[in-house]
C-alpha cells in the first residue's frame, strides 16, 4: 500500500522530459562518445576483422562472418589510440560534469547518424517529392550565345544556296564556319565571357512517379533571382549594360519519362533502390560492383571516392530504406578518399557536417573541382551539395534540400 502510493508520487512529466531529451540529445551524445578513446580491453580474438581486399581503402573493415553468417561492417575511427585501461568499479572521470561543448569530428557524427537513420520509419507512396533551392553560377549571358549561333546558322544556309554550284568554295566556307562555331563555343564557355561572379537562385519542387507511365511534375519559380558575389561584381554587370541573367520558362512542367535516378548507375531505378542492401558490408560490396560494371559510363579518371560521393548523393536524395540509408552513412564514414570538413552551415542556415572530395576539371587538370556534401547528423538527411571550381569562392552549383518524402498524389506536399 505504501509502495503503491509512493509509486504515484513520481511526477509524470519525467517520462515526457526523458523522451523528448532522448531524441534531442541522442545524435550528439553518441557522436561525442564514439569520438572519444576507449579503454583498451577487448581481446583481439573477439573481433576477427579482415581487410577488404581492395587497395586504397584501409578504413572500412568488414567483420568476419559471425555465427549467423552475417557480415557486419565496423568502422575504425581514425586517429584514436587506445589509452591504458583504468580498471575499477563505477567512478568519476576527471571531466565529470563538464559542460564544455564537445568538438565533433565528421566521421563520428556520421556513425551516430547511421544509427539514427536505422530508426526512421520506412515509408512509401506513388510520388517521390523533393523541394530544393538551386543556385547556379552565371557562366554565360543567356541568349548571347543563341543569338550568335543563330546568326551563323542563317549565314551558313545562305552560303549553301549561294555556293551550290561551287563545291570547292563551299567546302572551304564550311571548314571556316566550323572553326568560327568552335571559337564561339570556346569564348562562351571561357571565364572571360562573364567578367563578374553571380549566382542565379530558384526554388524547385518535383514529383517523381514511382510507376512507369505515371506523370512526373516539376514546378519552379517563373524567374530566378540573381545574387552577386560582391558589390564590385554587380558594378561590372551594370557596366555591361545590365544584361538579363535569368530566363523565362514555364512554371510547371509534366512529363511521363522514366527518369534516370543515378546517371553513373543505370541499374538503379526509383522502383528498385528500396531493395539495396541494408548492411554496410553488403552495400559496400554492391557499390563496388556497380563501380566496376559502369566503368564505361564515366570519365576514366573518376576515382572511387568521387564515384561514391556522386552515387551517395543520388541515393540519399532517393527513396532508399532507413536500413540502406544507415548502411550508406557507414560506407561514407569509412571512405578515406572523402575528407571530413567538420561542422558547417548550409545555405538555409542549417548546421551539418561536410564531406568533400576533389576531381579533375573539364580539361583533365587534377583536383580542379571540389565536391561537398552537407549532412544532418540529427536526422540523417542530406542538407546540401556543392560543386566548386578550385580558387573560386562562388560555387558552380549549390543545391539545398528543404524537403523530401513520398506523397500519394501529384501536386501534394508532405504533411509535417
Amino acid at each position, binding site marked *: *500500500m*505504501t*509502495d503503491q*502510493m*509512493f*509509486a*504515484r*508520487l*513520481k*511526477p*509524470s*512529466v*519525467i*517520462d515526457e*522530459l*526523458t*523522451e523528448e*531529451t*532522448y531524441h534531442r*540529445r*541522442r545524435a550528439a*551524445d*553518441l557522436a*561525442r*562518445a*564514439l569520438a*572519444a*578513446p*576507449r*579503454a583498451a*580491453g*577487448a581481446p583481439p580474438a*573477439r*573481433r576477427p576483422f579482415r581487410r577488404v581486399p581492395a587497395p586504397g581503402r584501409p578504413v572500412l573493415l568488414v*567483420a568476419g562472418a*559471425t555465427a549467423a553468417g552475417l557480415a*557486419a561492417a*565496423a*568502422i575504425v575511427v581514425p586517429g584514436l589510440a587506445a589509452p591504458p*585501461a*583504468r*580498471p575499477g*568499479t*563505477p*567512478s*568519476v*572521470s576527471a*571531466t*565529470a*560534469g*563538464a*559542460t564544455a561543448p564537445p568538438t565533433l569530428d565528421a566521421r563520428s557524427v556520421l*556513425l*551516430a547518424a547511421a*544509427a539514427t537513420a536505422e530508426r526512421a520509419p520506412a515509408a512509401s507512396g506513388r510520388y517521390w517529392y523533393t523541394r530544393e533551392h538551386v543556385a547556379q553560377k552565371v557562366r554565360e549571358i543567356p541568349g548571347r550565345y543563341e543569338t550568335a549561333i543563330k546568326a551563323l546558322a542563317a549565314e551558313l544556309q545562305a552560303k549553301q544556296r549561294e555556293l551550290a554550284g561551287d563545291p570547292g568554295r563551299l567546302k572551304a566556307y564550311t571548314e571556316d564556319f566550323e572553326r568560327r562555331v568552335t571559337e564561339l563555343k570556346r569564348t562562351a564557355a571561357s571565364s572571360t565571357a562573364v567578367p563578374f561572379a553571380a549566382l542565379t537562385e530558384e526554388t524547385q519542387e518535383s514529383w517523381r512517379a514511382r510507376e512507369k507511365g505515371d506523370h512526373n511534375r516539376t514546378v519552379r519559380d517563373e524567374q530566378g533571382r540573381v545574387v552577386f558575389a560582391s558589390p564590385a561584381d554587380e558594378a561590372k554587370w551594370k557596366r555591361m549594360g545590365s544584361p538579363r541573367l535569368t530566363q523565362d520558362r514555364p512554371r510547371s512542367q509534366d512529363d511521363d519519362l522514366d527518369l534516370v535516378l543515378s546517371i553513373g548507375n543505370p541499374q538503379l531505378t526509383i522502383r528498385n533502390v528500396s531493395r539495396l542492401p541494408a548492411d554496410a558490408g553488403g552495400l559496400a560490396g554492391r557499390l563496388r560492383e556497380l563501380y566496376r560494371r559502369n566503368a564505361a559510363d564515366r570519365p576514366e579518371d573518376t576515382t572511387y571516392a568521387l564515384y561514391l560521393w556522386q552515387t551517395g548523393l543520388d541515393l540519399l536524395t532517393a527513396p532508399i530504406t532507413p536500413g540502406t540509408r544507415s548502411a550508406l552513412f557507414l560506407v561514407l564514414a569509412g571512405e578515406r578518399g572523402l575528407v571530413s570538413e567538420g561542422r558547417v552551415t548550409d545555405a538555409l542556415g542549417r548546421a551539418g557536417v561536410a564531406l568533400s572530395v576533389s576531381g579533375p576539371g573539364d580539361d583533365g587538370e587534377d583536383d580542379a573541382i571540389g565536391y561537398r556534401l552537407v549532412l544532418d547528423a540529427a536526422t540523417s538527411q542530406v542538407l546540401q551539395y556543392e560543386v566548386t571550381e578550385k580558387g573560386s569562392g562562388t560555387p558552380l552549383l549549390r543545391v539545398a534540400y528543404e524537403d523530401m518524402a513520398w506523397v500519394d498524389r501529384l501536386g501534394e506536399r508532405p504533411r509535417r
Partner: protein
Amino acid sequence: MDDPEERFTALYDRHYRSVLGYALLRAEHAVAEDVSSETFLIAWRRLDELPEPSLPWLLGVARNLLAKQRDSGHRRRALVERVAALTTAQDHQSWDVAEHVVDREAALAVLASLPEQDVEALALATWHGLPPDQAAAVMGCSTRTYNVRLHRARKRLRKALRAEPPARPHPRAPHGRFLEEA
C-alpha cells in the same frame, strides 16, 4: 553485437531515459542532461568492463557525478524538493482520481521528513524497479544496508501517514510550492 559502436548505441537507446529520469530527480534539467551525457561517455570508455545488467552501474556513475555537482556550483537538490518542482496539475488529478487517504502534498511533506537516503532507497525500488542487490550497487552500499534503509523508509512512511490528519482541499500552485507551507 560484437561491434563496440553497436553495443554502445544499444546501451544508450535502452537506458538513456532511465539515467536521465534518475538525474532529473536530483538536478535541474540542464545539469541532468549533462550528467547523463557524461555518464554514457564514461560507459563508452569502459564498455568492455560493463557489468550485466548495466543499468545499476550507469545509475551509480550518474549518482557520483551528481554528488560532484555540489562542488561545481550547481547545488544538488533534495529528491523530495525536485519531485515537488516537477509536479504538474496532471499529477494532482491522477492522484485525486486514485482516492488516496491523504492528498499529494501531505504525502510529499511526509517524505520530506525522511532521511534522503531512505527516500532514495524507496525510489530505486519503486520508481526504477531495481531489486535490492542492484539498488545497493547504485547507492554504493551493501545489500543488507540497503534493505535496512528500504525497510526503515516504508515503516516511517506508514507511521507518518497514519499520524497525519486528513488534509483539507486547498488551492494548488501549478508547480507545487506547497513545501514552503508545510
